[in-house]
């Protein structure tokens, strides 16, 4: 634990490991449920367990707030920073890189797919004005962009991609309940594979609950969640296209 590369959560003293937890048990409040709550804290691998609150939500359901200390530690040396976490290039740098390395404008097609009607996320990435002061892809000289909006069928998206000879596909998924985003995203990749498009284009997905790991698992080249902006995406896609071009020689 003394090794500076091992860390634990911090409450008010280094390495105290303090974590706050809350959950509901499908049990009536009382001694039995409390004991179950403590067992859960133990199974989470916590010690110095404090059950701070027991509150009945309804007959059959009880809410707990608890604190505990995390016994394990995280070895920072085992952490690898992901490929999509590289420092973002500026718009000028990206345009410059495209000109130099790829020598032509790139075509990007984006949409919020399936039944998802949330557009703010994809607009944040694509629209000129961007989001949080970070400009969108429309502002790049070397990008040709098509934002198809929301509720776009995977089929329609791929059609459009073929038609425009797209280099990059951007998919936004915001609704994640019952894993509908996984269903939608998987369907798109499967269709792309079936049509032989998967390797011709860079597939990128994004949304508040999308992580890079998830995206990779689903067969995408990258995934971007909240706090990610157009420059992050542009940087990734351009580098990926350059990588592909180079590895083709």
């Amino acid at each position: 634990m003394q090794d500076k590369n091992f860390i634990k959560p911090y409450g008010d003293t280094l390495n105290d490991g303090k974590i706050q937890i809350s959950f509901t048990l499908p049990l009536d409040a009382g001694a039995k449920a409390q004991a179950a709550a403590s067992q859960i804290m133990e199974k989470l691998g916590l010690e110095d367990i404090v059950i701070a609150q027991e509150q009945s939500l309804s007959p059959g359901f009880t809410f707990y707030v608890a604190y505990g200390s995390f016994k394990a530690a995280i070895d920072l040396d085992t952490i690898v920073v992901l490929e999509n976490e590289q420092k973002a290039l500026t718009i000028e740098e990206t345009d410059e890189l495209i000109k130099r390395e790829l020598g032509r404008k790139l075509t990007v097609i984006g949409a919020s797919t399936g039944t998802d009607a949330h557009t703010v996320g994809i607009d944040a990435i694509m629209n000129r004005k961007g989001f949080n002061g970070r400009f969108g892809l429309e502002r790049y000289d070397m990008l040709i962009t098509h934002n198809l909006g929301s509720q776009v069928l995977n089929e329609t998206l791929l059609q459009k991609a073929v038609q425009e000879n797209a280099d990059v596909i951007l998919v936004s998924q915001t609704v994640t309940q019952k894993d509908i985003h996984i269903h939608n995203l998987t369907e798109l990749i499967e269709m792309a594979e079936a049509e032989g498009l998967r390797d011709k284009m860079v597939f990128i997905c994004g949304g508040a609950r999308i992580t890079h790991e998830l995206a990779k698992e689903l067969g995408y080249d990258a995934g971007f969640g909240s706090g990610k902006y157009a420059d992050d995406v542009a940087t990734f896609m351009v580098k990926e296209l350059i990588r592909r071009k180079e590895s083709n020689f």
Partner: protein
Amino acid sequence: MIDQIKLDENLVAQAKAHGASIASDVLAFVQGHTTVAVERTICRLLGIDGVNQVYAPYANVLVEHLKEWGLLSIGAAYFIAAAHLETKMSPQEIAEAVDQGQLQLGSFALPPGVTASDVLAPYINQSLKKIAEQRAKREEKIAAEPKKDRPLIYCIVATGNIYEDITQSVAAARQGADIIAVIRTTGQSLLDYVPYGATTEGFGGTYATQENFRLMRQALDQVGEELGRYIRLTNYCSGLCMPEIAAMGALERLDMMLNDALYGILFRDINMQRTLIDQHFSRQINAVAGIIINTGEDNYLTTADAVEEAHTVIASQILNEQLALAAGLPSEQMGLGHAFEIDPNVQGGFVLELAHALLSRSLFPQAPLKYMPPTKFMTGNIFKGQSQNTMFNIASYLTGQNIHLLGMLTEAIHTPFMSDRALSIENALMVFTSMAGLAEELEIKSGGKIEKRAQLVLEKALELLEEIDQNKLFHALEKGVFADISRSSQGGKGLDGVAKKDERYENPFSQIWS
């Protein structure tokens, strides 16, 4: 007393007059048209229920049949009446026979001078009776419960599974919720039919089906009895089946319905002609059923800026009001929407929120306003979220709002867990209890920032309404005056379900309710 604000009555009158003029334009268009949804609704109100072997609702089967044969513009009532007159089959039997390919409705015609209303009177009356009974039952239950001197707490459930929804709703009622809204699965609004039966597989919400309505109504009646309160039930009559869902809600005693004249156009890209026709009939049904509509102005502020676009909310409320009046829906049933969506980091934002809330309150003194919580500036920081919601609860309580949609601390994360809802209800009840009587002890500074802000927003709303009135609503929507979204009158979903009425056309229900 804080929940009043002085407005320039002249401005108010002008704004409402423009709204009325826009609405009468829309009405003129609406009256000349029908849609597949309107016709399916007529089928349902004539007692056509159930689905065929491939799960197509018989109402759809019958109306598709008419459409296929180019008979939509004459309407379902006409053909059902004609077939009934000749075959003595009930509407249900007729629909089933059509499904089996045993009837071709085009082969029937009403004798001159005979109206569908007359022929179908028994079926019509049966529906009217059922709706009236449900309305009476609601009124009775509400009269029996203790009155509340505070906003009604409105909670959503959205598990996707009607049975889990019931568990959640019953728990919420016990925790203090007054109104339960079952959120719809994503995508349902684009379905051109209403699914059938109890459902357990929705995404971000649960299918609106008549059986789901019935199950939830039953569960809420039961817990309501136990608690000595009437728990109100809400669903969505919006999307491509707007009036059908209105009819289902009327039959199953829903108490409120999300129903906005423009929401589907703007947020679901539904064709504007289609929506405006559908909403008119929906509102007639809601009106007779005593159902409070909830309009969706809050949605504008999730994409547009709540300070800059405050006047679009007001303009839209006036439009919704005037369109509702045109459909015979009284002010007491107008849950006009607005929202607490100013960035909490805006200096003095709360002062503006109060001004906006008071403006809505004062413009529609009879209307049970629906006030929406912060959503856009909610983050994954659930603790901060809890205090954003406390501020919202306070604004709502102080300004005398009626339908208080509860903010969830996990808004930016997931559809509510049972504990999220419980914590949010606790938050609101604590504010309402502890601040009880506060509004009476405070007064708004006359000529101060709050009054000035309200006046300014009203002026801008008036300008916008003037512009819409001049250019007509269709054109204004094409220009994108609301929520930064523009839609074409020929684009969007569902335009092929619109038909110009033939002179033989009859809608027996609309006739009664107009």
